[in-house]
């Protein structure tokens, strides 16, 4: 019991980065270096606290659950708290977020060292860390939504960090607006919850839901909430913002658009699993959306040339994997994958950043080559990440991916299982296509690339180490401890059998082998393959024309109708009013000719008036 006291102070985990943000924003923006150190110090303390919290939460066999809250918005009929709900789920997320954020912020010291806006960069980083941790700690949907939007706006600022570029400006805008579309549904879901159950607190909702028997309503609520996930976790059809978000600095992509923020959608489903799991139709839809996104994004990643975009589509695909796992009920497997993915994907992004940094912002993989000898640490780290992502045992990705596949199989979704295997093959292929071309390829990069400074490689090394071991808690070696703690009664937990493991490993190895054959040994010329299916290639390289479709929708439908409405406002609503004014004016114009300036005519009018009034008075006095 000795370590429980730390739980009462867990709110500091989210509060410290906010404090750092406020201090930087108000006082320190002229001193970029001090701002950076302050930001790193705050997230550093937060990560220590998070570790302590996790230690306390996992100190008992069942896992400790601790809840505390203060009122934030309070009136009869609506109450939103700022609270914290500490349980194994939150503890894992707290650890992941603080550790990755800390490493990314340290790495940024090297990556962004000559950036003029360094102070604001760290201010946004702190704001993001605070918001993300607040989101994780939330004990009710109101608070969740508040921080949900805040991480969105941080993402907006950081994608548009180099605001001088038009592409960054557009990407930031697109990210925010696309997320807003998802949030529209999410907010409606929250409104429904408040209306139906009169509370937004997870615990009270779970209790209230037990006796609730109205499947159609539950389906609607679950799907509306899932809308938020679709936006934030960039699932089809709202995935378009994530690849463009790569316009931001690479450490940002690593932290926000790979490891933490985009996983918030998955976290939401895990948190509200009691709602989702009570509607089997919703679960099926979630699984299908996730599975489709996984396949769809992986297919695009096969043909791209931009190193960050390949990783972005890979993120999409892996998020689809997690969402699919949620849909099949394998909540713990999904969260496990979220954790391992956070580590190895941020590792991949940071390593890619190191490459881009060394090559003066070159991002085309075919303009890179043979970097293994020039940047051994970066290359080693990247390969560890790629192996982990491909699911090669005993790296972390292997354990989590297998659990997802086993979950799909165990819940009877054979098609999703096959789809998952297919995606695993594709993932291994595109990752090692990248590895072979960039680190072992024969193309020569321009300039003289050399290894990045230690401040960048140290986080890489740490993350690589974590990526290797992060799978252990979910492996037989630690008796599936992860699945033991992160579980709800409604969730399905299937431990992968030996056959599943061997099969998925074989698929991954096949992918790697294919990449090796095509891009290292040149046994199979990629160009010939493209020539065989030119239409498919065109479809893939244009990302299924979905961005074009949205652009058309906005320009042709939304903007056109906006212009039409404005026309109507000026020419109908306004003209109506102006016509009334015009009529008044015109009547005056006409009547003024009765005013001829002759006093005698005026007197005559007065006389007429008097006569009329007299007559009326006489008549009325008779009537009344």
């Amino acid at each position, binding site marked *: 019991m000795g370590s429980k006291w730390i739980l009462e102070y867990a709110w500091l985990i989210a509060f410290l980065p906010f404090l750092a943000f406020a201090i930087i924003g108000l006082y320190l923006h002229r001193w970029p270096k001090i701002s950076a150190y302050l930001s790193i110090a705050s997230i550093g303390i937060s990560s220590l606290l998070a570790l302590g919290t996790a230690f306390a939460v996992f100190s008992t066999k069942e896992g400790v659950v601790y809840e505390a809250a203060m009122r934030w918005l309070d*009136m009869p009929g*609506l109450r939103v708290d700022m609270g914290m709900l500490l349980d194994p789920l939150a503890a894992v997320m707290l650890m992941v977020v603080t550790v990755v954020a800390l490493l990314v912020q340290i790495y940024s010291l090297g990556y962004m060292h000559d950036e003029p806006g360094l102070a604001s960069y760290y201010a946004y980083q702190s704001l993001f860390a605070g918001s993300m941790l607040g989101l994780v700690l939330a004990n009710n949907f109101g608070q969740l*939504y508040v921080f949900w939007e805040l991480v969105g706006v941080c993402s*907006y600022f950081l994608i548009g960090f180099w605001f001088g570029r038009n592409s960054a400006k557009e990407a930031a805008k697109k990210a925010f607006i696309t997320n*807003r579309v998802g949030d529209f549904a999410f907010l409606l879901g929250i409104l429904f919850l408040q209306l139906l159950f*009169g*509370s937004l607190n997870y615990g009270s909702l779970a209790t209230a839901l037990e006796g609730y028997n109205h499947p159609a309503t539950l389906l609607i609520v679950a799907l509306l909430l899932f809308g938020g996930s679709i936006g934030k976790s960039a699932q089809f059809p709202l995935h378009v913002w994530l690849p463009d978000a790569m316009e931001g600095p690479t450490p940002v992509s690593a932290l926000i658009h790979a490891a933490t923020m985009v996983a918030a959608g998955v976290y939401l489903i895990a948190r509200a699993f009691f709602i989702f799991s009570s509607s089997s139709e919703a679960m099926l839809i979630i699984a299908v959306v996730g599975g489709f996104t996984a396949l769809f994004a992986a297919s695009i990643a096969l043909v791209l040339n931009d190193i960050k975009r390949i990783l972005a589509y890979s993120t999409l695909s892996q998020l689809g994997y997690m969402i699919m796992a949620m849909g099949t009920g394998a909540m713990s497997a999904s969260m496990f994958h979220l954790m391992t993915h956070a580590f190895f994907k941020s590792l991949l992004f940071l390593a890619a950043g190191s490459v881009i940094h060394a090559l003066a912002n070159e991002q085309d993989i075919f303009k890179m080559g043979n970097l293994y000898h020039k940047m051994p640490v970066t290359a080693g780290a990247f390969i560890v990440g790629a192996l982990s992502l491909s699911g090669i045992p005993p790296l972390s990705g292997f354990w989590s991916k297998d659990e997802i596949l086993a979950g799909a199989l165990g819940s009877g979704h054979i098609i999703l299982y096959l789809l998952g295997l297919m995606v695993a093959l594709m993932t291994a292929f595109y990752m090692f296509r990248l590895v072979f071309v960039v680190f072992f390829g024969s193309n020569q990069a321009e300039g003289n690339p050399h290894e990045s400074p230690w401040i960048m490689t140290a986080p890489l090394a740490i993350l690589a180490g974590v990526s290797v071991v992060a799978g252990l808690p979910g492996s037989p070696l630690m008796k599936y401890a992860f699945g033991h703690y992160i579980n709800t009664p409604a969730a399905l937990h299937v431990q992968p059998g030996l056959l599943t493991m061997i099969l998925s490993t074989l698929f991954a190895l096949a992918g790697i082998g294919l990449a090796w054959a095509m891009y290292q040994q040149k046994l199979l010329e990629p160009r010939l393959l493209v020539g065989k299916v030119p239409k498919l290639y065109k479809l893939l390289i244009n990302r299924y024309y979905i961005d074009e479709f949205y652009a058309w929708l906005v320009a042709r439908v939304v903007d056109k109708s906006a212009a039409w409405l404005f026309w109507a406002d000026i020419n109908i*609503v306004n003209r109506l009013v102006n016509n009334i004014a015009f009529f008044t004016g015109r009547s005056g114009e006409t009547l003024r000719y009765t005013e001829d300036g002759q006093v005698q005519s005026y007197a005559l009018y007065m006389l007429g008036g008097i006569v009329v009034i007299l007559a009326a008075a006489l008549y009325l006095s008779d009537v009344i």
Partner: protein
Amino acid sequence: MLSNLPVLSLTLFMPIIGALIIIFLPKEEIRPIKYIAATSTFISLALSILIYIAYDRSLGGMQFIEHIPWIADLGVSYALGVDGISIPLMLLTNLIGFSAVYASWKVAERIKEFFILLLILISGVMGTFLTTDLFIFFLFYEVVVIPIYLLVIMWGSSKRVSKEYAGMKLTIYLLIGSAFLLTGIIALFIKAYSISGVPSMDIAALAGLEFPVGFQIFTFAFMALGFGTLLSMFPFHAWSPDGYAGAPTAVSMIHAGVLKKIGGYGLIRIGIYILPLGAQYIAPLIAVLAIGNIVYAAMICLSQKDLKYIVGYSSVSHMGYVLIGIAALNLVSLNGAVIMMFAHGVMAALFFAMIGNLYEKSHTRNVDDFGGLAHQMPRLASGFMLAGLASLGLPGLVNFIGEFTIFIGAFKEYRILTIIAVLGIVLTAVYILRTLGDVLFGPRREEWDELQDLQGPELVPLIVLGSVIILGGVYPLDIMSLINSGVEQIVMQVGLTNIQATILTGGSF
């Protein structure tokens, strides 16, 4: 201590006293004129903050009451008092009034006349929120119209429409609104006289009477037309974008910030409070029109290129939230409507202050003329950003509190309409981010290199209004408890059935 002084009268007449002093200054004394304007509005601001703090929430009801009989035959008395609804709006008036003085620091011509009219305008608007007498309410409302007209046609700017047109349109709409209002007030007075036999213009006394249903519906319809016009309710909104575009910065700030809110305040304080049955009958229609405001105006924003038109139409759109909050007629939604009025006021004033500043320096308001201004003017950019994010309802800023509360409240009464209303958050994000992106971000444009960033007095609106936006958003508990104390009292006294149901079932934790 506060209760012994006529605090409200002091707050109310401080700007007028300032104006009186300025009248006796020679017009060349520019600096004293500005300092007196700033000081008098600052005193009002300080007093209203004091009132905000000193108001006893556990007691509720009208406090700081002042009462001097004036026209006995009509039951009119100079009566002041504030409760949880009027305090935020009084505070809002003074926040914006103070900022508006600084936003007009660079006014170049007829400085003396400008500040005199501005100060009268501020007092006039404040009076409508402070009084508890229907006649005085109307009187102050009429006091507002004249300075507005003069300020627009003399110091305004002509773009799509000329400033004379804009001023005339604004004034005519305001007067049409007041004509409906006057009819309603006279009808109320006569009916109340025939029921109670005592002439009275006291709002609370009128609310204590039970008017027949038919009369309530009829009179509330008039009130709704009058106040709705003032609040730019669709389709009576046409004055708003043109008016703001033509008006000088300070007038746009006060007009969009506070004057519009007289409409919403009147609907709650006079409409719902005195005529609850009429309100219930007409409310669904108002809710439908509110959707017109939200979606229609937001769509039009998408096609606008003039910054002031964007904010003008956007304020029409935001008033839709207030209207649907009022139309839902329950405690939560009315709370939301009040905080939304406050939040929108601060946000719109900040937006107009920033636009005015930019226009003053660049002489254009066309979005396409700008780009990458964050390079040259980082402070202005953060002001724009703050106002924009507040406008699209970002949590952590006070506007979110309003939107969220209104949605929760309105969803209880109008399912479909609220769903359409929530669509507004997407459209708002689209036009706000487009505008901000095109003005502030993108490559540096050399032609704006000589523009000066905000400095000295220009920073005052940003600091004052910006900190209120953030404070209210981060810590809404305090102001919401104040508002709730006011709304709850009205709601309980009026005794709308659905409201009591809300209080009983809601709030479970």
